[in-house]
């Protein structure tokens, strides 16, 4: 395998061998149109000006890079910094992508948007962007995720979106993507699909990554400004992998910066009990892309489990597969219990309630920091805030909410 490079994907959407476009012919024309429109937008300074202004005045960027002093003391090792994506409007990094794609939707002259959501963060961010631009919005969400992320479901409705429960399959993120794709099969001429992660057919993995790289670009300049140098380690959680791709990508050429992706270890290492695709899966095809997947010997997608609805996904972005194979990023997993403990610890020591997704990255940082020297720096991408998880955490603890 060649070295990791920032010069991916190629024209046909390949990150090394990964990526591509494995979808029904019906969708190909729309994907080509999207790729062309995106190229035009990316080369248009007016597009960037409009997006940058929205990110500043509407989202509240740049998000702070915060030194977590008490968490650092607790670990007794490397300094832990948090990239505060939880402070964005709508409470997660997802808005970076949905605003970019909403602008693309308007440029393409489409008035209707569909999206899938797991934890509901992407659904809320899509509903928000659609409200902001006056676009009709339909969000597909697994029935199981609707149950465990109720606050986000209600927010989406308040924002004027229609939330359609998906009752097929495992009733989680993967099924929501299936259903959104099926909607798109019929509506492709008038509808844009705002995919929420760096997954799916080309050009989605590239578009979503590009819109999320604002996280890494800011982190890089904030490290230089606040610390005077780059960090030793960057840690981010990986489901589909958009927040990780966003913070990793600008650091790919900085070979001395270690990149660590943290997957959902769930209940156990047994297939079906976790969602650690890069750790335990193998290359295959899911949702239009060739990447690591969790599937059986016949290519049937496996059921997965995580306490976190946003990491509960049997696939992962093709660029993560590329980074894994090239050795540029390392992937590990953190189980449900460790994530819940990290969530608790961050809340008590720093007064920050992280999303259960982001808590996986925090948990990994808690393992890394004590093994490192005090002058070393670990940056954690705190991709979202945890309000949405409060009720589910209460239920798991057997407490009243």
């Amino acid at each position: 395998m060649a070295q990791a490079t920032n010069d991916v994907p190629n024209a046909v959407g390949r990150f090394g061998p990964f990526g591509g476009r494995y979808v029904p012919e019906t969708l190909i024309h729309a994907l080509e149109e999207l790729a062309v429109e995106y190229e035009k937008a990316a080369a248009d300074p007016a597009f960037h000006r409009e997006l940058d202004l929205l990110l500043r005045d509407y989202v509240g960027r740049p998000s702070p890079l915060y030194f977590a002093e008490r968490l650092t003391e607790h670990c007794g090792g490397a300094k832990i910094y948090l990239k505060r994506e939880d402070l964005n409007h709508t409470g997660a990094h997802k808005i970076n992508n949905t605003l970019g794609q909403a602008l693309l939707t308007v440029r393409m002259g489409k008035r209707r948007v569909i999206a899938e959501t797991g934890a509901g963060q992407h659904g809320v961010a899509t509903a928000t962007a659609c409200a902001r631009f006056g676009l009709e919005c339909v969000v597909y969400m697994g029935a199981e995720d609707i149950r465990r992320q109720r606050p986000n479901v209600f927010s989406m409705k308040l924002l004027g979106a229609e939330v359609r429960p998906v009752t097929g399959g495992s009733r989680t993120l993967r099924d929501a993507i299936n259903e959104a794709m099926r909607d798109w099969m019929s509506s492709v001429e008038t509808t844009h699909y705002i995919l929420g992660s760096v997954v799916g057919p080309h050009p989605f993995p590239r578009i979503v990554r590009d819109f999320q790289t604002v996280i890494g670009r800011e982190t890089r300049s904030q490290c230089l400004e606040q610390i005077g140098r780059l960090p030793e380690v960057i840690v981010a959680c990986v489901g589909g992998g958009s927040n990780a791709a966003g913070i990793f990508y600008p650091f790919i050429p900085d070979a001395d910066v270690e990149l660590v992706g943290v997957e959902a270890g769930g209940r156990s290492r047994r297939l079906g009990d976790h969602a650690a695709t890069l750790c335990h899966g193998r290359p295959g095809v899911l949702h239009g892309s060739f990447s690591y997947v969790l599937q059986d010997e016949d290519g049937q997608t496996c059921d997965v489990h995580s306490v976190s609805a946003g990491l509960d996904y049997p696939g992962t972005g093709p660029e993560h597969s590329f980074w894994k194979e090239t050795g540029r990023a390392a992937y590990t997993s953190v189980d449900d219990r460790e994530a819940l403990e990290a969530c608790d610890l961050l809340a008590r020591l720093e007064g920050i309630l992280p999303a259960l997704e982001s808590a996986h990255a925090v948990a990994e940082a808690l393992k890394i920091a004590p093994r490192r020297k005090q002058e070393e720096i670990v940056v954690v991408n705190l991709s979202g805030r945890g309000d949405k998880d409060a009720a589910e955490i209460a239920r798991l603890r057997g407490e009243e909410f």
Partner: protein
Amino acid sequence: MSSIDLLFQRLRTAGKKAFMPFITAGDPDLDFTEAVIGELAGRGCDLFELGIPYSDPIADGPVIQASYNRALEKKIKLADILERIGKITGGTGCQPVLPAPPIVTMASYAVVYRHGLEKYVADAQAAGAAGAIVPDLPVEEAAPLAAICRKADFSLIQLITPTTPRDRAKRIAEQTTGFIYYVSITGITGERESLPPQILDDVAWLRQQTPLPVCIGFGISRPEHVRMLAPVADGLIVGSAIVRRMAEAAVKPRRQVLDEIGRFVASLRAALE
């Protein structure tokens, strides 16, 4: 020439059209799959499209999704399906159950890739299948599988849809073997009340571009659909309307369900003449 090429050559010479049912393999079990193929071959079906159940079929509507799920819940395996195709066609050396029309498998690329491209073609061909449809493998990604299929004289049927631009449609036609699967609608599989009249022009145009047979599928479920499309097509594919009836095998005597499917298909088949 594959058996599909021979079939269409024969039909064209006779001025006839192909009728092609789609059925799910293993819903509710492979014995019933075999029985349905036997019943429908007896009703004059020319070619079978055998759906290999897949967990995430994004081109399929609720009827075929549910059918795939029923088969998968019973732990249907590709190896068992291939073995059964072999039994039906005589491909595995046993006496064929019937003088079977050609069978093409319809399998997601996830399934084909996991099995191994070479191995999939070799195993399906050894079982007596004549070709494959891979509904999520667009022409840009199809080259590796197409090369293997071409070498083996195993048809790789590709799809053209109403959203396919015309220059692209020509490119797809050049890469296709067996027949072209023209998708009647912009959407997923499932019965429709009516079909867009635009198909007629689009398929007529397509048939001028290629010597390959063009078969139309998606949404076809009524004799009037068949009468509408037959003049422009080389064949018609009917899936959900049959699969929906197969589902009743769970609650009704199988012989009765087979009769009902047989009569339904015969009514469509008659409209094709």
